[in-house]
């Protein structure tokens, strides 16, 4: 299993008391798997994704990424694990507004400097159909192109796991298909994909869909 959740819970302290965002989740994502977690807004999907990405410590339970619990590592090592094994794709893209397409992709290689990084980035630019946009900044790209840049950035380091939070939320139908196709391609090449969405049509593209409601994934 690339990703394993063992009875993972996460609670937040709110103005009205403690809020259980996620309760007792147990599931896994294997290599080659594209797993979708579908549920309405506010059901805890993003919280789940952040815990999977070693960005949010669970209140209880265990998260294993490629067999290791990232929350047992010191913060810098945890960052290193993210740089090495995890790629993120967000609904809002989160591209760096002053860097070009190529530089945005290369920004992901800063924590793991590599002499071949530029070559990989150039290949991804071409593969994702961004060849004539390599020097453009995000403001000069369409939403579909921006999400493709984000996707290229997520995979440039050759991660084992891609976590996608509503990756198609801001895209038109054509670009939805393009992005999902790329995610499936990543999974087919041996990686794992955990995709969270509220859209059943998007979830249908996954190999497996888990329904999430009120912080739980009923068995």
């Amino acid at each position, binding site marked *: 299993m690339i990703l394993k959740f063992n009875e993972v819970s996460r609670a937040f302290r709110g103005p009205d008391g403690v809020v259980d965002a996620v309760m007792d989740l147990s599931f896994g994502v294997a290599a080659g798997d594209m797993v979708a977690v579908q549920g309405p807004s506010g059901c805890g999907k993003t919280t789940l994704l952040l815990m999977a990405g070693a960005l949010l410590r669970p209140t209880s339970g265990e998260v294993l990424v490629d067999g290791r619990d990232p929350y047992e590592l010191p913060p810098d090592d945890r960052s290193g694990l*993210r740089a090495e094994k995890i790629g993120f794709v967000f609904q809002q893209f989160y591209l760096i507004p002053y860097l070009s397409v190529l530089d945005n992709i290369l920004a992901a290689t800063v924590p793991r400097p590599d002499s071949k990084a530029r070559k990989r980035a150039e290949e991804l630019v071409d593969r994702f159909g961004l060849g004539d946009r390599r020097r453009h900044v995000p403001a000069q790209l369409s939403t579909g192109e921006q999400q493709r840049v984000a996707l290229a950035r997520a995979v440039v380091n050759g991660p084992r796991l891609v976590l996608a939070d509503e990756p198609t939320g801001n895209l038109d139908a054509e670009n939805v298909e393009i992005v999902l196709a790329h995610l499936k391609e990543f999974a087919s090449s041996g990686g794992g994909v955990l995709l969270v969405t509220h859209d059943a049509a998007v979830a249908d593209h996954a190999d497996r869909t888990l329904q999430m409601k009120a912080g739980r994934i009923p068995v």
Partner: protein
Amino acid sequence: MNVLRISLGEVRYRKLGFLLGLVAVVVAVGSVVASMLLLRLHDIETESILAGKEKETRRRLKALENEVRKATLKLSFNLVILPEGQDIREWYTRDYSSKYMPEEYVDMLADSGIVLVRHFLPSLQEKIKWPETKRTIILVGTRGEVPNLHKSPKKPLVQAVPKGTIVLGHELHRSMGLKDGQTTRLMEREFTVHKCHPKRGNKDDITAWIHLSDAQELLDKKGKINAILALECICAQVGSLAEVRKQITDILPGTQVIEKGSRVVARAEARLKLRADAKAILANARERRALLKGERERITAMLAALLVAACATWLAVLGYGNVWARRSEIGVMRAMGYRSRHIALLFLSRFLALGLMGAVLGLVGGIIAGDALGVMLDESGRGMIAAKAMLQVGHILGIVALSCILTLIAGWIPAMVAMQQDPATVLRGE
């Protein structure tokens, strides 16, 4: 790709924020540089003023010393040598001594080689009652001047009175109706009037001068005198008086030497006082300039410190605003695996760039501002040129280093805030 390239891109993207920070650093550095230049200009002006005063004082002193030197060629001072044991108060009261010394003392002085005295005048003086005329007179016995054998001969100041003759003061010859060549009797001895002095308006008018040996016989003081006048003592400086005194008392131990009062001593003392006053004026001027400089330095340091603190605060506020504007950037960078040091470097490199650029521009701006202010204070502008020349490489490097350190300190808190940001909060919230 590295953090510095990302940082550079961000500076180009958020130019306004960077420029606002740059202005703050330029103002801080510029004000410090301008203050330094103005303080240096003050130093240069001080030296120039003091040099001018010193030059003028030296010129005036030299002129006065030349005057005094010319005057002292013609002037000298006189000394009275009194016998051992003579009460000086009594001498001042009676104007002649009641103690006696051997006449040969004069010859001892003349033969001694003493260099500061030209003539010696031995005398035997007493106040007596002229029995024949029932008058109280001052009788002075003198044999004339004894020249200093070791000095070149000069015309005597006091002429000798020949033996058997008498010189009369105005009141004496007038009241007795005596004229030159006539005879008169004094203490049963006949004397021929050698000279009748005109009115002098002092005790000379009741004085009678006879030859020393005649006086010694009349007063029964054979071989004795009660005063030696040392005439034309050469006065090069006030210290000569003490030197002459020492020379005389070395030759005639026990005798007392009194200076008869002269304008030369007063002038020499006045000259010394002038020199001392000039020194005091210069010292006072230097002290006042130093006080002024001290005050200016204090005010400048206070203002500069306030300005630097204000600029640093402004930088920190701008830095915090920059962190807030880039929180989603920070969040996604954390998601990509950026460590705390990457985030810190991202922000601190920005502040370092501010420090470097601000220092260079601030130096230029400070020199221009200092120049403009300096020319207003020092119209010739020469002082400011010299002040700028005093800005050494060490100073410039010091200013650049200090600027970088201060901007890094100002940027430290924003960088810490950026490092501490929880990416989950940002990414979940967005």
